[in-house]
């Protein structure tokens, strides 16, 4: 049993990857590399980025920015989501705010962000603003799905409101929060790249902007693959962490 599950978890994705690369290579054959570079060309572009030293510098910056924005969103979004989920008044007051955060497009944010916080922090701001609603919405839904019987129990035994939130609400909100975090972390890298593309000189997004300008589609693909790698990496880490720490009692 354990053996075969290892095989499945290990080999299947590899097989999927191989299939994908073959299809890609075939498709690329039909187009000019300006439109669709082949996997080989993309690989070469990636290699050149790496040897030129650009790669590490840019990725490094983007990671810091992404994680800062994401971290802020978690720190602000989780309590806010709980508050909205628990309190009707907070719901009325903040719910529209969440929608505003979610719906306002980058262009409109850019203007305001530039005034308020200066350019260099725009990527952090954009990540914050795009990921926070995902966390808030999931936390709200989690808080609303809390078992009333357990709440009644805690109230009867006069457990303090603070501890009820930490020890009764939070553990039940966690699966929802996890969904929110997974979604938010995925979005983070995209948002960083987007914001960098618009506003700053360095980072993965800036690299993409240059590649795009020069019609170096292979480099653009290389950066995209880096982003995807980053996304997969953080997704795995999140999964690993949560399985270890958060849901061991299930």
């Amino acid at each position, binding site marked *: 049993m354990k053996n075969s599950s290892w095989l499945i978890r290990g080999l299947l994705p590899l097989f999927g990857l191989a299939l994908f690369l073959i299809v890609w290579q075939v498709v690329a054959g039909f187009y000019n590399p300006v439109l669709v570079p082949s996997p080989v060309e993309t690989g070469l572009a990636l290699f050149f980025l790496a040897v030129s030293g650009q790669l590490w510098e840019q990725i490094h910056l983007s990671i810091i920015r992404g994680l800062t924005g994401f971290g802020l969103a978690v720190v602000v979004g989780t309590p806010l989501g709980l508050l909205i989920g628990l309190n009707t008044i907070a719901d009325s007051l903040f719910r529209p705010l969440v929608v505003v955060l979610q719906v306002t497009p980058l262009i409109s944010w850019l203007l305001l962000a530039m005034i308020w916080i200066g350019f260099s922090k725009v990527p952090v701001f954009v990540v914050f603003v795009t990921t926070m609603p995902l966390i808030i919405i999931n936390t709200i839904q989690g808080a609303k799905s809390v078992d009333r019987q*357990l709440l009644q129990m805690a109230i*009867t035994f006069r*457990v303090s409101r603070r501890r009820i939130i930490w020890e009764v609400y939070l553990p039940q909100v966690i699966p929802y929060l996890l969904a929110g975090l997974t979604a938010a972390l995925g979005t983070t890298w995209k948002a960083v790249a987007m914001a960098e593309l618009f506003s700053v000189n360095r980072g993965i997004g800036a690299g993409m902007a240059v590649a795009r300008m020069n019609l170096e589609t292979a480099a653009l693909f290389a950066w995209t693959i880096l982003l995807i790698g980053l996304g997969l990496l953080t997704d795995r880490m999140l999964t690993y962490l949560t399985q270890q720490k958060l849901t061991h009692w299930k």
Partner: protein
Amino acid sequence: MIRFEHVYKTLGKTKVLQDFSFSAEKSKIICLIGPSGCGKTTILQLLAGLEQVDAGRITGTEGLSISYVFQEPRLLPWKTVADNIAFVLREVVSPDRQQELIRKYLTMMGLYDYWNNYPKALSGGMKQRLALCRALAFPHDLLLLDEPFLSLDIPLRLNLVRQVAGMWRNNPRTIVFVTHEIMDALLLGHRILVLSARPATVLDTVEIQIPLEQRDIGKEPLSTYYTRLLTWLKDESVSKADSTR
């Protein structure tokens, strides 16, 4: 003295209590016996303040520290056996005393070996016992017990009934105790209320004057009470069988 005065309570569209009154003397054990679905749990929820009356009033529960064994175990699945008890003790008892209480009650219920287990690893009866531990360990003025000995084997149940009686003798407080076991009611109750089917009315009030430690089920005078209660319940059974057919 806790009193229900002309209480009305509707849950959803079900009229559960209609002009319902009774009183429970302070520091005595009162037992509620009645057919399934008649409103016993509702009465406890009202006492605990988890539901509000629609009309009438409830007096004598103000400011009381309440401990409650719910009809379901209501354990926190993400906390270990010991932490489920510590959860309710944290704010009322010093850390040392917490450990002491947890040890004492887990031992009493035969759960000491499961200290670090999570509730999913407990059997049905063990969960029930843990809920009982939690309620007994929590310092209280009023204890609400909703079928606390469910899923327990007879000797264990009798043992626990004796333990509760002992605790009450050491430190008498008001206990409201819902059960379907006449035996448990006879062994623990100072006053036994026999309730009718919904809407609940009090069919009979049995006062038992014998001290708890002298009660013996096989012998007079307890066996006369037994017969009296059984008659009521048999009657009920007739009327019930009618209504359900």
